[in-house]
Protein backbone atom coordinates (compact mmCIF):
# COMPACT_ATOMS: atom_id res chain seq x y z
CA UNK A 1 0.00 0.00 0.00
CA UNK A 2 0.92 3.63 -0.21
CA UNK A 3 2.33 3.82 3.27
CA UNK A 4 5.32 1.69 2.40
CA UNK A 5 6.71 4.71 0.63
CA UNK A 6 6.57 6.63 3.89
CA UNK A 7 8.48 3.99 5.81
CA UNK A 8 11.32 4.15 3.38
CA UNK A 9 11.38 7.98 3.52
CA UNK A 10 11.46 8.44 7.28
CA UNK A 11 14.91 8.24 8.91
CA UNK A 12 13.60 6.37 11.97
CA UNK A 13 11.32 3.45 12.34
CA UNK A 14 7.91 4.99 13.05
CA UNK A 15 5.02 2.67 13.78
CA UNK A 16 2.39 3.38 11.12
CA UNK A 17 -1.21 2.48 10.87
CA UNK A 18 -2.49 -0.13 8.51
CA UNK A 19 -5.27 2.07 7.19
CA UNK A 20 -6.56 5.57 7.83
CA UNK A 21 -9.63 4.15 9.52
CA UNK A 22 -7.39 2.74 12.28
CA UNK A 23 -7.22 5.64 14.75
CA UNK A 24 -4.65 4.24 17.20
CA UNK A 25 -2.35 1.22 17.13
CA UNK A 26 -3.21 -0.21 20.48
CA UNK A 27 -6.96 0.19 20.17
CA UNK A 28 -9.30 -2.33 18.74
CA UNK A 29 -9.11 -2.28 14.97
CA UNK A 30 -12.58 -1.03 14.31
CA UNK A 31 -13.01 0.70 10.97
CA UNK A 32 -15.98 2.76 10.12
CA UNK A 33 -17.78 0.14 8.14
CA UNK A 34 -17.53 -2.05 11.25
CA UNK A 35 -18.89 0.65 13.53
CA UNK A 36 -21.90 1.34 11.43
CA UNK A 37 -25.21 -0.31 11.88
CA UNK A 38 -26.82 -2.22 9.07
CA UNK A 39 -28.36 0.14 6.45
CA UNK A 40 -32.01 0.85 7.27
CA UNK A 41 -34.68 1.03 4.63
CA UNK A 42 -35.52 4.70 5.00
CA UNK A 43 -37.25 5.41 1.73
CA UNK A 44 -41.02 5.31 2.42
CA UNK A 45 -40.94 6.61 5.96
CA UNK A 46 -38.74 9.49 4.84
CA UNK A 47 -41.09 10.50 2.07
CA UNK A 48 -44.02 10.47 4.49
CA UNK A 49 -42.15 12.50 7.05
CA UNK A 50 -41.04 15.07 4.49
CA UNK A 51 -44.58 15.45 3.21
CA UNK A 52 -45.88 15.89 6.75
CA UNK A 53 -43.27 18.60 7.34
CA UNK A 54 -44.22 20.40 4.12
CA UNK A 55 -47.90 20.33 5.05
CA UNK A 56 -47.14 21.78 8.45
CA UNK A 57 -45.14 24.59 6.87
CA UNK A 58 -47.92 25.34 4.39
CA UNK A 59 -50.47 25.53 7.18
CA UNK A 60 -48.25 27.97 9.04
CA UNK A 61 -47.88 30.14 5.93
CA UNK A 62 -51.65 30.13 5.39
CA UNK A 63 -52.25 31.17 8.96
CA UNK A 64 -49.82 34.04 8.62
CA UNK A 65 -51.44 35.18 5.40
CA UNK A 66 -54.93 34.99 6.86
CA UNK A 67 -54.01 37.21 9.76
CA UNK A 68 -54.79 40.88 9.10
CA UNK A 69 -51.88 42.81 7.59
CA UNK A 70 -50.09 45.00 10.06
CA UNK A 71 -50.89 48.65 9.67
CA UNK A 72 -48.15 50.86 8.31
CA UNK A 73 -47.49 53.50 10.98
CA UNK A 74 -48.02 57.08 9.82
CA UNK A 75 -44.91 58.83 10.96
CA UNK A 76 -46.56 62.25 10.95
CA UNK A 77 -49.09 61.28 13.61
CA UNK A 78 -46.63 59.89 16.11
CA UNK A 79 -44.95 62.65 18.11
CA UNK A 80 -41.42 61.68 18.99
CA UNK A 81 -41.05 61.63 22.76
CA UNK A 82 -38.23 64.12 22.87
CA UNK A 83 -40.62 66.91 21.82
CA UNK A 84 -42.91 66.53 24.81
CA UNK A 85 -40.28 67.47 27.37
CA UNK A 86 -41.15 70.39 29.56
CA UNK A 87 -38.14 72.54 28.75
CA UNK A 88 -39.47 72.81 25.23
CA UNK A 89 -42.54 74.77 26.16
CA UNK A 90 -42.38 78.34 24.96
CA UNK A 91 -42.77 81.04 27.55
CA UNK A 92 -44.57 84.05 26.12
CA UNK A 93 -46.52 86.80 27.86
CA UNK A 94 -50.27 86.21 27.87
CA UNK A 95 -52.39 87.99 25.24
CA UNK A 96 -53.97 91.30 26.19
CA UNK A 97 -57.65 91.97 25.83
CA UNK A 98 -57.12 94.30 22.87
CA UNK A 99 -55.11 91.65 21.09
CA UNK A 100 -57.83 89.01 21.44
CA UNK A 101 -60.45 91.51 20.30
CA UNK A 102 -58.37 92.42 17.29
CA UNK A 103 -57.95 88.77 16.39
CA UNK A 104 -61.63 88.00 16.61
CA UNK A 105 -62.55 91.00 14.46
CA UNK A 106 -59.89 90.09 11.92
CA UNK A 107 -61.22 86.55 11.67
CA UNK A 108 -64.71 87.89 11.02
CA UNK A 109 -63.41 90.21 8.30
CA UNK A 110 -61.55 87.33 6.76
CA UNK A 111 -64.68 85.20 6.74
CA UNK A 112 -66.55 87.90 4.85
CA UNK A 113 -63.69 88.44 2.42
CA UNK A 114 -63.46 84.76 1.60
CA UNK A 115 -67.22 84.49 1.14
CA UNK A 116 -67.21 87.36 -1.37
CA UNK A 117 -64.27 85.84 -3.18
CA UNK A 118 -65.96 82.46 -3.38
CA UNK A 119 -69.21 83.96 -4.66
CA UNK A 120 -67.35 85.93 -7.33
CA UNK A 121 -65.52 82.80 -8.47
CA UNK A 122 -68.73 80.81 -8.70
CA UNK A 123 -70.40 83.58 -10.64
CA UNK A 124 -67.49 83.72 -13.08
CA UNK A 125 -67.65 79.98 -13.65
CA UNK A 126 -71.40 80.26 -14.19
CA UNK A 127 -70.97 82.91 -16.90
CA UNK A 128 -68.27 80.80 -18.49
CA UNK A 129 -70.56 77.80 -18.74
CA UNK A 130 -73.43 79.92 -20.03
CA UNK A 131 -71.27 81.48 -22.74
CA UNK A 132 -70.13 78.05 -23.85
CA UNK A 133 -73.67 76.69 -23.94
CA UNK A 134 -74.78 79.64 -26.05
CA UNK A 135 -71.91 79.10 -28.47
CA UNK A 136 -72.75 75.42 -28.80
CA UNK A 137 -76.41 76.20 -29.40
CA UNK A 138 -75.54 78.59 -32.21
CA UNK A 139 -73.16 76.06 -33.66
CA UNK A 140 -75.85 73.44 -33.66
CA UNK A 141 -78.08 75.77 -35.61
CA UNK A 142 -75.32 76.14 -38.14
CA UNK A 143 -74.34 72.56 -38.81
CA UNK A 144 -74.86 69.32 -36.95
CA UNK A 145 -71.56 67.91 -38.13
CA UNK A 146 -69.50 70.74 -36.67
CA UNK A 147 -71.49 70.48 -33.47
CA UNK A 148 -70.72 66.79 -33.14
CA UNK A 149 -67.05 67.48 -33.75
CA UNK A 150 -67.11 70.19 -31.09
CA UNK A 151 -68.69 68.10 -28.33
CA UNK A 152 -66.30 65.23 -28.83
CA UNK A 153 -63.96 64.59 -25.89
CA UNK A 154 -60.43 65.95 -26.25
CA UNK A 155 -58.16 63.11 -25.18
CA UNK A 156 -54.95 65.10 -25.15
CA UNK A 157 -56.23 67.69 -22.69
CA UNK A 158 -56.16 65.72 -19.43
CA UNK A 159 -53.96 65.11 -17.50
CA UNK A 160 -53.00 68.74 -17.66
CA UNK A 161 -49.80 69.77 -15.88
CA UNK A 162 -48.47 73.22 -15.23
CA UNK A 163 -45.83 74.67 -12.93
CA UNK A 164 -47.40 77.27 -10.69
CA UNK A 165 -46.26 80.89 -10.53
CA UNK A 166 -43.40 81.81 -8.18
CA UNK A 167 -42.79 84.98 -6.25
CA UNK A 168 -40.10 86.36 -8.61
CA UNK A 169 -39.52 85.62 -12.29
CA UNK A 170 -36.64 83.31 -13.16
CA UNK A 171 -33.24 84.96 -13.01
CA UNK A 172 -31.44 84.57 -16.34
CA UNK A 173 -28.05 82.94 -16.01
CA UNK A 174 -28.52 81.86 -12.38
CA UNK A 175 -26.20 79.06 -11.23
CA UNK A 176 -27.79 77.14 -8.35
CA UNK A 177 -25.38 75.91 -5.63
CA UNK A 178 -24.21 72.29 -5.88
CA UNK A 179 -25.54 69.71 -3.50
CA UNK A 180 -26.96 66.23 -3.25
CA UNK A 181 -30.28 65.38 -1.66
CA UNK A 182 -30.30 62.03 0.16
CA UNK A 183 -33.77 60.69 0.87
CA UNK A 184 -34.00 59.05 4.30
CA UNK A 185 -37.73 58.36 4.46
CA UNK A 186 -38.55 54.93 5.87
CA UNK A 187 -40.40 52.69 3.45
CA UNK A 188 -42.73 50.07 4.94
CA UNK A 189 -43.97 47.02 3.08
CA UNK A 190 -47.07 45.18 4.10
Amino acid at each position, binding site marked *: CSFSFFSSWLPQMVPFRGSHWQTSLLAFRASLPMRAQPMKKKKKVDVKREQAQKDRLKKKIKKLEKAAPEMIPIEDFITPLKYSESNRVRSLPPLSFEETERRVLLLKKWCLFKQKQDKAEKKAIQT*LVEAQQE*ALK*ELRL*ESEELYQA*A*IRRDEGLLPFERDGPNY*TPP*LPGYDPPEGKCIDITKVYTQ
Partner: protein
Amino acid sequence: TAAAPRPWRLFGAMCLLRLPRITQPLEKEEEEMAALMGQIELEKSHYSDHEIRRLEEEEQLRRRKESMYDDDDEAPGKTVIMAQDLEDKWEQKLLQFKAAPRITDADKNNNRTSLNRKLDSNLMLLVKQKLGNQELWLLPQVEWQPGETLRSTAERAMATFLGDHIQAKILGNAPYGIYKYKFPRAIRTEDNVGAKVFFFKAFLQSSDFSQAELKEDYLWVTKDELGDYLKSEYLKKVNRFLLD
Protein backbone atom coordinates in the same frame (compact mmCIF):
# COMPACT_ATOMS: atom_id res chain seq x y z
CA THR B 1 -84.19 73.48 -43.73
CA ALA B 2 -81.04 71.43 -43.60
CA ALA B 3 -80.45 71.48 -47.33
CA ALA B 4 -80.50 75.25 -47.86
CA PRO B 5 -77.16 76.87 -47.07
CA ARG B 6 -77.23 79.05 -43.97
CA PRO B 7 -76.68 82.74 -44.56
CA TRP B 8 -74.10 83.07 -41.82
CA ARG B 9 -70.39 82.97 -42.53
CA LEU B 10 -68.34 81.13 -39.94
CA PHE B 11 -65.08 82.32 -38.43
CA GLY B 12 -62.83 80.61 -35.92
CA ALA B 13 -60.92 82.87 -33.54
CA MET B 14 -58.24 81.97 -31.06
CA CYS B 15 -57.79 83.62 -27.69
CA LEU B 16 -54.18 82.87 -26.84
CA LEU B 17 -53.41 83.37 -23.15
CA ARG B 18 -49.98 83.75 -21.62
CA LEU B 19 -50.42 82.51 -18.07
CA PRO B 20 -49.00 84.47 -15.15
CA ARG B 21 -45.38 83.82 -14.16
CA ILE B 22 -45.42 85.38 -10.69
CA THR B 23 -47.97 85.51 -7.91
CA GLN B 24 -50.35 88.39 -7.56
CA PRO B 25 -49.77 90.78 -4.66
CA LEU B 26 -51.79 89.96 -1.54
CA GLU B 27 -54.81 91.99 -0.56
CA LYS B 28 -54.80 93.83 2.75
CA GLU B 29 -56.99 91.24 4.50
CA GLU B 30 -54.87 88.43 3.14
CA GLU B 31 -51.69 90.00 4.49
CA GLU B 32 -53.18 90.62 7.91
CA MET B 33 -54.48 87.09 8.04
CA ALA B 34 -51.12 85.66 7.02
CA ALA B 35 -49.44 87.62 9.83
CA LEU B 36 -52.03 86.41 12.34
CA MET B 37 -51.60 82.80 11.25
CA GLY B 38 -47.86 83.09 11.69
CA GLN B 39 -48.28 84.51 15.17
CA ILE B 40 -50.70 81.79 16.26
CA GLU B 41 -48.40 79.14 14.90
CA LEU B 42 -45.51 80.60 16.86
CA GLU B 43 -47.54 80.68 20.06
CA LYS B 44 -48.70 77.12 19.73
CA SER B 45 -45.29 75.72 18.88
CA HIS B 46 -42.56 74.32 21.08
CA TYR B 47 -38.90 75.18 20.93
CA SER B 48 -36.88 73.56 18.20
CA ASP B 49 -33.37 72.11 18.65
CA HIS B 50 -31.79 75.19 17.18
CA GLU B 51 -33.68 77.48 19.54
CA ILE B 52 -32.81 75.40 22.60
CA ARG B 53 -29.17 75.52 21.60
CA ARG B 54 -29.39 79.28 21.24
CA LEU B 55 -31.06 79.72 24.63
CA GLU B 56 -28.48 77.55 26.35
CA GLU B 57 -25.63 79.45 24.77
CA GLU B 58 -27.15 82.74 25.83
CA GLU B 59 -27.39 81.39 29.38
CA GLN B 60 -23.74 80.39 29.26
CA LEU B 61 -22.68 83.78 27.96
CA ARG B 62 -24.64 85.53 30.70
CA ARG B 63 -23.13 83.34 33.38
CA ARG B 64 -19.69 83.91 31.96
CA LYS B 65 -20.15 87.66 32.03
CA GLU B 66 -21.37 87.63 35.62
CA SER B 67 -18.51 85.52 36.89
CA MET B 68 -15.51 86.47 34.81
CA TYR B 69 -12.90 84.72 36.96
CA ASP B 70 -14.03 81.11 37.02
CA ASP B 71 -14.53 80.44 33.36
CA ASP B 72 -11.22 81.69 32.14
CA ASP B 73 -9.62 78.39 33.19
CA GLU B 74 -12.15 76.25 31.32
CA ALA B 75 -12.15 76.19 27.54
CA PRO B 76 -9.18 78.44 26.75
CA GLY B 77 -8.79 79.10 23.05
CA LYS B 78 -11.62 76.76 22.11
CA THR B 79 -13.71 78.50 19.46
CA VAL B 80 -17.30 77.37 19.55
CA ILE B 81 -19.71 78.32 16.81
CA MET B 82 -22.72 79.86 18.49
CA ALA B 83 -26.20 79.50 17.14
CA GLN B 84 -26.46 83.25 16.93
CA ASP B 85 -23.40 83.36 14.66
CA LEU B 86 -24.99 80.81 12.39
CA GLU B 87 -28.12 82.89 12.15
CA ASP B 88 -26.12 85.97 11.29
CA LYS B 89 -24.25 84.06 8.63
CA TRP B 90 -27.46 82.87 7.04
CA GLU B 91 -28.89 86.37 7.11
CA GLN B 92 -25.82 87.70 5.32
CA LYS B 93 -26.09 85.03 2.67
CA LEU B 94 -29.73 85.91 2.05
CA LEU B 95 -28.91 89.58 1.66
CA GLN B 96 -26.25 88.76 -0.88
CA PHE B 97 -28.73 87.03 -3.18
CA LYS B 98 -30.52 89.34 -5.55
CA ALA B 99 -33.68 88.02 -7.18
CA ALA B 100 -35.06 89.13 -10.52
CA PRO B 101 -37.39 92.15 -10.25
CA ARG B 102 -41.14 91.56 -10.30
CA ILE B 103 -41.75 94.73 -12.29
CA THR B 104 -39.81 94.40 -15.49
CA ASP B 105 -38.50 97.02 -17.89
CA ALA B 106 -41.35 96.38 -20.27
CA ASP B 107 -43.71 97.33 -17.46
CA LYS B 108 -41.98 100.62 -16.97
CA ASN B 109 -41.98 101.47 -20.67
CA ASN B 110 -45.54 100.16 -21.11
CA ASN B 111 -44.36 98.29 -24.16
CA ARG B 112 -47.52 96.42 -25.01
CA THR B 113 -45.92 94.27 -27.70
CA SER B 114 -43.59 92.44 -25.31
CA LEU B 115 -44.48 89.32 -23.40
CA ASN B 116 -42.47 90.30 -20.35
CA ARG B 117 -45.03 92.75 -19.15
CA LYS B 118 -47.48 92.24 -16.28
CA LEU B 119 -46.01 88.96 -15.17
CA ASP B 120 -48.72 88.43 -12.58
CA SER B 121 -51.73 88.43 -14.93
CA ASN B 122 -52.96 86.77 -18.09
CA LEU B 123 -51.95 88.35 -21.39
CA MET B 124 -54.01 87.95 -24.56
CA LEU B 125 -52.99 88.33 -28.16
CA LEU B 126 -54.76 91.04 -30.19
CA VAL B 127 -54.14 91.49 -33.88
CA LYS B 128 -55.13 94.26 -36.25
CA GLN B 129 -57.25 92.81 -39.01
CA LYS B 130 -59.06 94.22 -41.99
CA LEU B 131 -62.75 93.38 -42.15
CA GLY B 132 -64.58 94.79 -45.10
CA ASN B 133 -63.16 98.25 -45.27
CA GLN B 134 -62.37 98.67 -41.60
CA GLU B 135 -59.15 97.99 -39.75
CA LEU B 136 -60.02 96.57 -36.36
CA TRP B 137 -58.23 95.17 -33.35
CA LEU B 138 -59.49 91.62 -32.93
CA LEU B 139 -58.55 88.27 -31.53
CA PRO B 140 -56.88 86.49 -34.45
CA GLN B 141 -59.59 84.98 -36.63
CA VAL B 142 -59.80 83.24 -39.94
CA GLU B 143 -62.74 82.14 -42.05
CA TRP B 144 -63.91 78.58 -41.74
CA GLN B 145 -63.43 76.36 -44.74
CA PRO B 146 -65.62 73.34 -45.39
CA GLY B 147 -63.92 70.11 -44.45
CA GLU B 148 -62.27 71.22 -41.24
CA THR B 149 -63.53 71.44 -37.69
CA LEU B 150 -63.78 74.81 -35.99
CA ARG B 151 -60.90 73.94 -33.69
CA SER B 152 -58.59 73.48 -36.66
CA THR B 153 -59.82 76.82 -38.00
CA ALA B 154 -58.74 78.42 -34.77
CA GLU B 155 -55.38 76.65 -34.95
CA ARG B 156 -54.96 77.91 -38.48
CA ALA B 157 -55.75 81.42 -37.31
CA MET B 158 -53.04 81.15 -34.68
CA ALA B 159 -50.55 79.77 -37.18
CA THR B 160 -51.32 82.51 -39.69
CA PHE B 161 -50.43 85.23 -37.29
CA LEU B 162 -47.72 83.64 -35.20
CA GLY B 163 -46.10 81.04 -37.40
CA ASP B 164 -45.94 77.28 -37.07
CA HIS B 165 -43.51 77.04 -34.18
CA ILE B 166 -45.93 78.09 -31.49
CA GLN B 167 -46.69 75.53 -28.80
CA ALA B 168 -50.12 76.14 -27.34
CA LYS B 169 -52.44 73.90 -25.38
CA ILE B 170 -55.94 74.32 -26.77
CA LEU B 171 -58.52 73.70 -24.09
CA GLY B 172 -60.90 71.25 -25.68
CA ASN B 173 -62.82 70.91 -28.89
CA ALA B 174 -65.77 73.09 -27.96
CA PRO B 175 -65.93 76.85 -28.53
CA TYR B 176 -65.95 79.10 -25.46
CA GLY B 177 -67.96 81.98 -26.81
CA ILE B 178 -69.63 83.35 -29.87
CA TYR B 179 -69.97 86.77 -31.44
CA LYS B 180 -72.71 87.15 -33.98
CA TYR B 181 -72.99 90.24 -36.14
CA LYS B 182 -74.89 91.22 -39.25
CA PHE B 183 -73.18 92.89 -42.11
CA PRO B 184 -74.07 96.49 -42.85
CA ARG B 185 -77.02 96.80 -45.18
CA ALA B 186 -74.89 97.70 -48.14
CA ILE B 187 -73.18 94.32 -48.24
CA ARG B 188 -76.00 92.23 -46.95
CA THR B 189 -77.56 89.81 -49.40
CA GLU B 190 -80.03 86.95 -49.16
CA ASP B 191 -77.28 84.42 -48.70
CA ASN B 192 -74.90 86.52 -46.72
CA VAL B 193 -76.61 88.02 -43.73
CA GLY B 194 -73.76 88.16 -41.30
CA ALA B 195 -70.99 86.28 -39.60
CA LYS B 196 -70.58 84.16 -36.50
CA VAL B 197 -67.22 84.20 -34.81
CA PHE B 198 -66.53 81.22 -32.53
CA PHE B 199 -63.84 81.75 -29.90
CA PHE B 200 -61.44 79.09 -28.68
CA LYS B 201 -59.07 79.35 -25.74
CA ALA B 202 -55.46 78.21 -25.61
CA PHE B 203 -52.60 78.49 -23.14
CA LEU B 204 -49.23 79.52 -24.48
CA GLN B 205 -46.56 76.94 -23.65
CA SER B 206 -43.40 78.14 -25.34
CA SER B 207 -42.01 81.46 -24.25
CA ASP B 208 -39.56 82.35 -27.01
CA PHE B 209 -40.77 84.15 -30.07
CA SER B 210 -37.54 84.48 -31.98
CA GLN B 211 -38.90 82.52 -34.91
CA ALA B 212 -42.30 84.16 -35.02
CA GLU B 213 -42.89 86.29 -38.06
CA LEU B 214 -45.64 88.65 -37.17
CA LYS B 215 -46.68 90.54 -40.21
CA GLU B 216 -49.39 92.73 -38.86
CA ASP B 217 -49.55 94.77 -35.70
CA TYR B 218 -50.02 92.76 -32.58
CA LEU B 219 -50.44 93.43 -28.90
CA TRP B 220 -50.40 91.45 -25.71
CA VAL B 221 -52.93 92.94 -23.33
CA THR B 222 -54.56 92.09 -20.05
CA LYS B 223 -58.29 91.77 -19.53
CA ASP B 224 -58.60 95.32 -18.21
CA GLU B 225 -56.80 96.81 -21.16
CA LEU B 226 -59.02 95.03 -23.68
CA GLY B 227 -61.49 97.87 -23.41
CA ASP B 228 -58.96 100.22 -25.01
CA TYR B 229 -58.95 98.29 -28.22
CA LEU B 230 -62.09 96.27 -28.74
CA LYS B 231 -65.50 97.45 -29.78
CA SER B 232 -68.10 97.39 -26.99
CA GLU B 233 -70.33 94.58 -28.28
CA TYR B 234 -67.36 92.41 -29.15
CA LEU B 235 -65.79 93.19 -25.81
CA LYS B 236 -68.92 92.19 -23.94
CA LYS B 237 -68.95 88.77 -25.53
CA VAL B 238 -65.25 88.26 -25.07
CA ASN B 239 -65.33 89.22 -21.40
CA ARG B 240 -67.86 86.51 -20.68
CA PHE B 241 -65.40 83.71 -21.22
CA LEU B 242 -62.32 85.34 -19.73
CA LEU B 243 -61.49 84.68 -16.09
CA ASP B 244 -59.38 87.35 -14.53
